[in-house]
């Protein structure tokens, strides 16, 4: 009998859900819940049962009645709701442009390089743009009379303070405060006292990298830079390394990548940190070694986004800013 009741319930719920008119619903109500309805028919058999079974079946019958009643009620409400009237709708209306901001192309490059290096455990560090001569030059083995320190290219405020010419100054600041292992990436503005033209402004952005630990090698540097170039510009991009000279790295190298026209463009300088620089920062070169690089963020942005005049990057012209980059 229980099975009968449950089957009856399932059948009723199915029919109610399929009903498509109020009339049909009323018919179903009478069919199941009416005085001569199917449930009452089943209940006629109750007197034949014992006391416990009677009680149990009574509860079940009530549950079934409630379920059917509820479902009828919901379906009735649903059928009574009037559908909205049809009206004319034009999906071809022009859109209202959303007001969306863009990150600057240099920021986009910096973010990408930071993300690439964060895969290798590098974190972002920074330092001041007006810097001491001692930190910008002397600790990096560019003594006051060093020939590669051309005063023509440095903006000074007095004999001690200047606008940093590279982000390498942050290497010094960071190493003076932290012992190896060190892995940092330092984006920042640097200044050169150059004549202004399509490729030279008084300041531009560099991204410095520094790694120092007990075993990292020159081949690690080559590997990570090639990985970076390919991550930025695509797998097939060719990269080459050649010897150069920076007083604060040895060996020193420069790196070129090939553009779409097959020309080689210099994008960064790098090398193994000179042991004397480590000593200057109280790091023992017998225990530790490392490498550093400095890449031109402006130049990378120009290369990546096809910008030909560096002055666009600093123009503040929305016609440029809203379309440059990705």
């Amino acid at each position, binding site marked *: 009998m229980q099975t009968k009741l449950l089957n009856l319930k399932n059948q009723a719920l199915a029919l109610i859900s399929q009903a498509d008119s109020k009339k049909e619903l009323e018919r179903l109500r009478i069919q199941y819940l009416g005085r001569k309805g199917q449930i009452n028919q089943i209940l006629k058999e109750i007197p034949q049962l014992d006391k416990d079974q009677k009680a149990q079946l009574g509860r079940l019958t009530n549950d079934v009645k409630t379920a059917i009643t509820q479902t009828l009620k919901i379906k009735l409400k649903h059928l009574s709701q009037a559908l909205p009237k049809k009206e004319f709708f034009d999906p071809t209306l022009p859109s209202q442009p959303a*007001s*969306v*901001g*863009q990150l*600057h192309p240099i*920021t986009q490059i910096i973010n990408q390089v*930071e993300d690439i290096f964060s895969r290798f*455990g590098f*974190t972002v560090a920074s330092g*001041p*743009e*007006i*810097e001491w001569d001692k930190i910008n030059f002397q600790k990096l083995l560019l003594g006051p*009379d*060093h*020939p*590669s320190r051309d*005063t023509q290219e440095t*903006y*000074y*405020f*007095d004999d001690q*303070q200047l*606008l940093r010419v590279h982000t390498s100054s942050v290497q010094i600041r960071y190493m003076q405060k*932290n012992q190896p*292992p060190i892995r940092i990436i330092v984006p920042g*503005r640097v*200044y050169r*006292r150059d004549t*202004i033209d399509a490729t030279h402004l*008084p*300041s531009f952005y560099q991204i410095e990298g520094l790694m120092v*630990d*007990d*075993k*990292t*090698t*020159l*081949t*690690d540097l080559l*590997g*990570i830079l090639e*990985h970076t170039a390919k991550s930025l510009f695509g797998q097939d991009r060719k990269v*080459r*390394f*050649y*010897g150069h*000279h920076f007083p604060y790295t*040895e*060996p*020193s190298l420069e790196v070129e990548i090939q553009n779409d026209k097959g020309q080689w463009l210099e994008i960064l300088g790098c090398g*193994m940190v*000179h*042991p004397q620089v480590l000593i200057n920062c109280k790091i023992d070169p017998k225990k530790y*070694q490392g490498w550093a690089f400095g890449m031109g963020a402006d130049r990378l942005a120009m290369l990546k986004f096809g910008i030909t005049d560096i002055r666009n*990057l*600093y123009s*503040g012209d929305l*016609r440029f*800013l809203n379309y440059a980059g990705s």
Partner: protein
Amino acid sequence: MQAPKIWLEKYVDLSGISDKQFAEKMTFAGNKVEIIHKIDGQTVYQFEITSNRPDTLSIIGLAREAAAVFNKKFSPPKIPQPTNPKAKPISLKVANKNLCPTYSLVEINHVEVKPSSQSIQKLLTLAGMRPVNNIVDIANFMLWEHTQLMHTFDADKIKGNLNLRLAKPKEKIITLDHKTRQLLGGEIIIADEEKIIDVPGLMGGLNTEISHHTTRVLLLVAIDNPVLVRRASKNLKLRSPSSTRSEKKLDLTQTAAVAKRVIKLIEKESGGQQSTQLITSPSNWKPPTIKLNIKKLNSIIGFNFTQSQVDKYLKSIGLAKTSSGYQPPPWRRDLEAEVDLIEEVSRLHGFNRLPRTLPTGTIPIHQTALRKNWPRLIKNQLASLGYTETYSSTLINQTAITALGLNLKTHLKVLHPMSQDYEYMRTTILQSLIPLIKLNLKSTQQINLFELGTVFYPSKSKAKLPDQPLELGLISTTTTYRQLKGHLESLAHRLNLQLEIKPSKHPCPMLHPSNQAEIYLKNKLLGILGQTLDKNAWAASLNISELIKSASTSRQYSTISGYPPIIEDMTFTLPAKTYLGPVITTIKATHKLIQSVKLTKVYKHNYTFNLTYQSQTKPLTDKTIAPIRKKITAGLSRKFKAKLVGKL
């Protein structure tokens, strides 16, 4: 450094090597070929020479490098044996050997000053020099061959003997370029008994210049103290091919050999004759012995060089192996320590031939390194609010300061600006942003810009660096004051901070005199916001360095109340010119059940506030709220003379 191929080929055989191959392999080894010129059908390589390699600022040096790179034989020039007349040249007294560690001195008589031979003129022209006369050309020719400076004087114009000494302040000399130069003191000079005749390493004096009347030449081939030459070159603003060479560490062993070649050349080119002994004052230079631990080399490079590879590479550039290490040749005075030899081996092997690896090892955990990347978070937040990022110059011109009514004296100024457009350091990003409105209005009405960059405040003491905080600047032609304020508050909210925006105590002249406000964080003034003077835009600036000192992004979840809130409006009439901020703060502070107070409607002097009451612990009834309403009404009436519209 321009090096004609035919000139290099005098000392190294380059046959079978194409221009492209030559340029590429020389570049890879650190001698960068920037351009390959074709001049009069001849190949001329233009090298970029790094400051550590003055030896390659010469044809012979580059030929030596090419020989090492291409595994060819280097054939040095033959040194002729001079005749040895008994007479002595004009004597030179060197005040201190440190000023001039080595020199050679000789006189040549019966010279005829005339144009040099075609072969010399041709090579000089290809190398980018202008032929003058045989004597000057020979000096330039030998400078280009050997990186060796020399000076030729008209010996008949010299009075008595010569002294090489430091200049005294205010001494004067008219140099070959006809300029009168006043010396600061401390420059190396050569003087005869009457006058200064030379600033060695930089430029000679007009008073002893070689002319068409010259018949007796005094030749001085010398190496001077490079540091003093460099300082003098800076002080006198005299840069020349001579100065860029003589300020570096040059070969101290070759003056006599070069002098012998010059004597021979002058005799050949001018018909003159050596008329005195060749006097040489040799230097005390001895080659250092440098140890190279092959394990160290391999651990730095990450490659297994063999001992024989190392020996081969070092021998190819002239190092001698001894029982205790390697001795560099005299032209490589840049080689001083093990690390220098590590560089030589790796560059000669070729960096492109090394394998590529990636770092292994421990990833560092430093407090300073684990800081949140706040600039990026802030930039992303602003871009999502519709602002486009711009970068401006931090160096600005005078007008950008004075036009905004700011004081020049509070701005740092660089000592030797290249242009008046880049002279002062900005003190606020608004100096960069405000002019951009006018620029962009030519093309669009919708301007929303931001910049996150450095601004600079002079330090009170020279012993401290200037304060250089990161500042955020915002400017918009599309927002209202309330929207801009909302943008700033949402940014602060992202950093878990609450800004207070108050009427300006010290109005800033860059902005509209009345329509501006000050931004505070915990009672510290961190920025301003307001309308531009032309009322075209609203702008704000905010000291981000200070802001992020208190910032955090971790936020603890607070349970949402399960009890329904009571939400209702109250309308008050406020006297004219009442600041609404304190009114709202007062309402909010009346009772802790008040969750929020929003201004929803303003009609004349009637202000409608939408209040939300909610409790975490119990359902609210009108009985609970009624006394709070009374308290609000009484409070506003007392503090602001506000009148409730309607009845309680």
